[in-house]
């Protein structure tokens, strides 16, 4: 029997949330250990499981994996969410990487001074509306299929849904000019594993609050 993957991170979204989404979408149960104290973090370092002294850490298939993009690629391949050939994988990489850039801006914003934080969020919404969402709207329009790549669910679709929901938290009408993305959002949200993840009580984490920021600063000492 395969042991469940185990996730080590703060009790919040940060750089682990995309990994939770991917596992959930793949229908994979996972455990979580939440970092709350500096001592816990130092123990992980001492145990030698943090290659570059950083979390996220995911223990899976006997490996301590760090670096969120490496983890996401591994999971996508393992759970058949990476397309059927090199060219599809390439497109998934391009789309997911672009979306991750946007989400990284969101993840970093809470740690900035209040004014810069607001500016960051405003920039995220602007980039979403002018740089990222138009691209995906066009992709869906050009092929008329239900998923971004290869007519089947991939990492790129899950990543995009996550991004859409996070940007909507910042600006509810952000999808108003993108009818195909609206339909996409509904469709992907209704996939059973994803629907379950979207319900209260799942392992999905809420938006960062002051407490989350404080814990992270304490544990990582910055």
């Amino acid at each position, binding site marked *: 029997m395969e042991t469940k993957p185990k996730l080590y991170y703060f009790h919040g979204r940060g750089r682990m949330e995309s990994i939770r989404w991917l596992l959930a979408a793949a229908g994979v149960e996972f455990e979580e250990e939440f970092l709350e104290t500096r001592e816990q973090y130092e123990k992980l370092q001492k145990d030698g499981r943090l*290659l*570059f*002294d950083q979390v996220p850490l995911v223990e899976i*298939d006997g*490996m301590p*994996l*760090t*670096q969120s*993009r*490496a*983890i996401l*690629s*591994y999971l996508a*391949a*393992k759970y058949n969410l990476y397309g059927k050939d*090199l*060219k599809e*994988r*390439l497109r998934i*990489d*391009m789309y997911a*990487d*672009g979306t991750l*850039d946007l989400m990284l801006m969101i993840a970093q914003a809470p740690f900035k001074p209040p004014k810069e934080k607001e500016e960051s969020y405003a920039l995220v919404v602007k980039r979403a509306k002018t*740089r*990222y969402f138009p*691209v995906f709207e066009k992709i869906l329009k050009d092929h008329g299929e239900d998923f971004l790549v290869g007519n089947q669910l991939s990492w790129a679709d899950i990543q995009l849904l996550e991004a859409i929901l996070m940007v909507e938290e910042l600006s509810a009408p952000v999808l108003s000019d993108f009818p195909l993305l609206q339909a996409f959002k509904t469709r992907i949200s209704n996939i059973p594993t994803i629907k379950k993840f979207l319900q209260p009580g799942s392992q999905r984490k809420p938006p960062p609050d002051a407490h989350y920021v404080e814990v992270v600063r304490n544990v990582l000492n910055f």
Partner: protein
Amino acid sequence: MSGKPVLHYFNARGRMECIRWLLAAAGVEFEEKFIERPEDLEKLRKDGKLMFEQVPMVEIDGMTLVQTRAILNYIATKYDLDGKDVKERALIDMYAEGIADLSEMMGQLVVTPPDQKEAKIALIKDRTKNRYLPAFEKVLKSHGQDYLVGNRLTRVDIHLLELLLYVEEIDSSLLAPFPLLKALKSRLSNLPNVKKFLQPGSQRKPPIDEKALEEAKKIFKLS
């Protein structure tokens, strides 16, 4: 039409250099079209060639590719410089991301305000000798092989070589405590394609100088 990959970027290292290195290591000839004025970038955008309005962009196999990581993955797989299974690829990706993080810190130096530069350099040196180099030295020590992953040359060896050269540019004494990394550096530098790329006259780009950066900022109206 030559059929060679065409790289679209500024005439500088930036986020394209790792791609140049990988192509060179794979023995693949490539052409470059340098973005020299805002109009060059605008044209690429208007022609719909930049998916997210950004460079690097590489034209290869009839496709226009963007996003550095996606491009590196594609090139590595195509030229057999990737892991042979998912687990090897996970290690390669993990190591490569660490390398990219440190490279990113170094790349940010040129746009760091003068009053913050010294602190930034100190942080880079600290991370280099206390976080990144020890991690890679340990990987090499753990298996005693000539390459980081899978006992053969993969893209991550090339990425690491590139990084070690940048570390030396900052402070050559940083490599001193890491004998296995020094040996790896020598070994990789002597691979024929790499040796060629290291010679003057290759498409390898020099560090950006302050003057060129000032010019670029003016031309592109960056802050």
